[in-house]
């Protein structure tokens, strides 16, 4: 795996350690050789304007000038994710007492979660760096996205998930074909296994391990889209679910880049992280005033957020503190309540991570931490059809009746 003269990663110029600043050439690297810190993409952005973006395709490739992908990225088969709807959520806002609320509904992506964004960027990097297999450890959504993207690209996939995953996520991965392994362990166990396999199988691109610096940049497109869809401006407050923490930190990075490029006006915004109480290492560290979180063993129905040792947890703390936000957590009961509230007020069926985010939105509004008069955006990162078990025990038909008008009248539902 190496760069060749044909390698084209667009505006990306180098990999730089977020911890110690040590820089190295672009390549299949993810940890700093000096301190093991995370490597981030450095760029030399060319002339990117609102007009050049708006003239682009109706997917994340409209932002290709801000991503580590080839300039002809649209020419290779990929799932073309992104440009999901930003829903003005007046009924949910009214329910909670907020002035203006938007839901960025990323369940509208090709495999129904935000993971299609990051995988599309990882796939491009994997191709450019010469990898042969697209692989990942996953809590489910990523498994769907990798298996689908590899199928579309015509390359092999190798997906590893905890064996206790929701049945929906098992089926929606297996259907794409490819190598699919369920592992008797939790996500952190699977993650460790993937890291060890990545050290052995040199032509396997584990999207969130050895090509993670590229992959993670895909989440910036959530931030770009929110700003563009708001009419090229930033919201006042944003609530983002925290699993590894990468989505939250990259949305912040996107906002900062848009400011630096002059594409939006510079203004203060507050970033809030949302976790489940059964897996709250970052929320706990925030509340304790710690700079570094302590890993936990997850126990929550929000399996897509069940990462006990989140790679970017520390940087979530940095972003929340820098912007005047917080990191909060909610119980599994509040997660289910959040899913039902979003569905009943906005007609959006989010997965458990969405329930966590709505639950935290509600909790922070009620406690007065969120400013109810400020414009707020929340992320619904995935589709409720993938986590049916979460709500199956608490939702049911109103009545079951015979196909007669008499039975309808007798049921008292008119």
């Amino acid at each position, binding site marked *: 795996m190496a760069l060749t003269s044909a390698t084209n990663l667009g505006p990306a110029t180098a990999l730089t350690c977020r911890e110690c600043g040590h820089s190295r050439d672009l390549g299949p690297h993810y940890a700093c050789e000096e301190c093991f810190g995370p490597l981030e993409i450095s760029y030399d952005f060319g002339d990117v304007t609102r007009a050049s973006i708006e003239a682009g395709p109706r997917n994340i490739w409209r932002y290709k000038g801000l991503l580590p992908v080839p300039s002809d990225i649209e020419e290779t088969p990929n799932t073309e994710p992104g440009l999901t709807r930003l829903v003005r959520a007046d009924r949910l806002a009214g329910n909670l007492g907020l002035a203006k609320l938007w839901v960025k509904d990323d369940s509208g992506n090709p495999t129904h979660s935000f993971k299609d964004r990051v995988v599309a960027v990882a796939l491009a990097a994997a191709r450019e760096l010469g990898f042969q297999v697209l692989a990942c450890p996953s809590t489910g959504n990523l498994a769907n996205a990798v298996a689908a993207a590899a199928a579309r690209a015509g390359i092999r996939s190798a997906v590893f998930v905890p064996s206790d995953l929701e049945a929906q996520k098992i089926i929606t991965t297996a259907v794409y074909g490819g190598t699919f392994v369920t592992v008797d362990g939790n996500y952190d*166990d699977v993650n460790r296994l993937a890291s060890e396999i990545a050290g052995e199988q040199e032509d396997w691109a584990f999207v969130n391990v050895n090509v993670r610096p590229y992959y993670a940049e895909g989440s910036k497109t959530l931030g770009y889209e929110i700003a563009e869809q708001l009419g090229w401006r930033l919201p006042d407050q944003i609530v983002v679910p925290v699993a590894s923490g990468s989505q939250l930190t990259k949305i912040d990075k996107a906002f900062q880049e848009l400011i630096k490029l002059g594409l939006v006006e510079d203004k203060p915004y507050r970033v809030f992280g949302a976790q489940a109480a059964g897996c709250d290492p970052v929320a706990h560290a925030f509340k304790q005033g710690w700079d570094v979180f302590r890993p936990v063993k997850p126990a929550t129905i929000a399996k897509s957020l069940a990462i006990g040792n989140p790679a970017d947890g520390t940087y979530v703390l940095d972003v929340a503190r820098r912007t005047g936000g917080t990191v909060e957590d909610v119980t599994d009961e509040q997660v289910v309540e959040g899913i039902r509230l979003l569905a009943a007020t906005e007609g959006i069926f989010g997965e458990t991570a969405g329930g966590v985010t709505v639950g935290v939105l509600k909790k922070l509004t009620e406690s007065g931490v969120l400013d109810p008069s400020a414009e707020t955006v929340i992320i619904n990162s995935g589709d409720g059809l993938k986590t049916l078990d979460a709500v199956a025990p608490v939702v049911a038909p109103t009545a079951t009746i015979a196909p007669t008008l008499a039975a309808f009248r007798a049921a008292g539902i008119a």
Partner: protein
Amino acid sequence: MSTVSVRIPTILRTYTGGESEVSAEGGTLRAVVADLEASYSGISARILDDGGKIRRFVNVYVGDEDVRFAEGLDTPTPSGTQISIIPAVAGG
């Protein structure tokens, strides 16, 4: 003396001559790291920070256990133990 097996991550294999798995001696993780340093000069400073603690972005497993959930560098490493050193920045 207990002999253990240590899996070396890709970015540290420059120290081990490309070996992905090496043997070391020591009854605790601390002793194992010291023995690795004796065999592969410079490797300890990659794993431990200036204060002698495991670097923030390094995960070390003794058997199946992340040593942060055990006794850190004082975690016992009986003979035959499998140790893995893994970059922490992965996943999600």
